[in-house]
């Protein structure tokens, strides 16, 4: 008989202890981030949408070496087509990335020798059709100031000081 009493006493105490731990939480500030109004703060390493950097005078840095095409896990996601101009320097005339199928792994940005292809903090990529998610060169290129900004951010990050 008395172990039932001890059992219930212990049970009631445990339930009350659980209840008051939950009540303690009532006096703590809520941690929800109200997304559309307040956007999360992201650092420069965040792997968002791809973008192509350009030089200060607008000519693009990408030398058309196509190594990013080879290292992408999805194979035909990045399409780069180049042609040789008069002093046989490669000129990139088509550079498309199908962001609908990209898994944002960052392989291409690591392997790019000139750090032309980078990953911005842009994560709102919803769109109305799959075709419009295939970004062509014009959509990918950043403005010179943006590329300069990203250049400094990446430098600071490589020394691990950002």
């Amino acid at each position, binding site marked *: 008989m008395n172990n039932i009493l001890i059992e219930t006493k212990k049970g009631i105490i445990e339930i009350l202890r659980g209840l008051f731990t939950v009540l303690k939480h009532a006096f703590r500030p809520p941690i929800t981030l109200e997304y559309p109004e307040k956007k999360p703060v992201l650092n420069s390493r965040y792997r968002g949408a791809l973008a192509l950097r350009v030089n200060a005078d607008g000519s693009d840095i990408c030398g058309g070496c196509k190594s990013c095409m080879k290292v992408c*896990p999805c194979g035909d996601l990045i399409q780069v087509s180049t042609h040789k101009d008069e002093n046989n320097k490669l000129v990139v005339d088509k550079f498309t990335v199908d962001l609908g199928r990209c898994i*944002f*792994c960052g392989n291409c940005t690591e*392997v790019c020798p000139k750090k032309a292809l980078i990953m911005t903090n842009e994560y709102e990529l919803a769109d109305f059709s799959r075709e419009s998610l295939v970004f062509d060169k014009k959509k990918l290129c950043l403005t010179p100031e943006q590329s300069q900004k990203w250049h400094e951010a990446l430098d600071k990050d490589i020394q691990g000081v950002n």
Partner: protein
Amino acid sequence: MQTQELKLNVGPQHPSTHGVLRLVMSLDGEIINDIEPVIGYLHRGMEKLAESRTYHQYLPMVDRVDYLSSFFNQESFCLAVESLAGLKVPKRAEYIRVITMEFNRIASHLMWLASFLLDLGATSPLFYAFREREDIYTLFEELTGARMMYNYYCFGGVKKDFPSGWMKKAQDLCKKMPKCFDEYEAIITNNPIFLRRTKDIGVLTKEMALDFGITGPNLRASGIDLDLRKTNSYSVYNELDFKTCLAENGDSFDRYIVRIDEMRESVKIIGQALEKIPGGTPEKLLVKKTNCGCKEESCPICGFDTKLTGKKIVPLAFKPPAGEAISQIESPRGITTCYIVSDGSPNPYRVRWRTPSFSNVQLLPELMKGKIYADLMAIFGSLDVVLPEVDR
């Protein structure tokens, strides 16, 4: 009165099957006569994908084998390739790997705790567990750039060093964590309803566990001391002291207790690793390197130990020699082994993933026969099965 068996289909879309698992159950009233798991709804063909991709192309896909513990799949794949190609990993990279893996173990256990208690009805621990998990994911986002699919290890080490101030944040989180674990224990551990729902329910005996190849917390809850970090320790686990958490009678409650202790152990491991890391915080390391300036390997400051990766590997021309290798690591759900056969070409010839949840789901019918339908949630929840690992 002649009763007819009710064939119930706990289908692929069900709130508590942790993914797409279908359990075809024949119920007699509430008693389960027979249960037959049907898997394969999440089969992405990880092993066939490997055969048409190079090692570097396959590395980001390895995160997806078990999306709750991506660092562990990357570690097992990198360990196998490093032993194949004979790459040595510097000590600093090993420490960074241990820190990130243990954080990932805590995050994965918190996800298990949240869904296990939600299945049993207690809703508030879910939000508290997710609050800690969010802190860990923000740390990962600062370190690797992504919240769940990190692609952060590379063959022979780690891709980037800690950002500034990251180690300080990690230490504060490690101080805050044990208090939060005490809160979960206060709400749940000796709660009479929780005890009655999980005490000696789904008892897994030692022989049945070994016979079914169960590993990880489920095995340790039955009293067998098999923790690869301790027994055949890989990476730098032998330099960190921690204890493996055991329990005796292997019921759902003991699996819960083992996982909560394991989370506390992981916090201790992270604390030690953060102090013992060769070279300290990246800023201090940078200053010391510039002062020391010597280039030879032996010097402890700018020698091999404080580098991030061993030999520089060109991704497009990486051909490990022919041969085969097995790497075994202790992932949150059990022992994950990655068996790679390479024939000297840039693509792996055969990759075989052995994942712990596969044998956990195989064990389910043995544990569930004759039990009541409501016990399904307590037993299945405590086994911590995650479906991407089962179907690969």
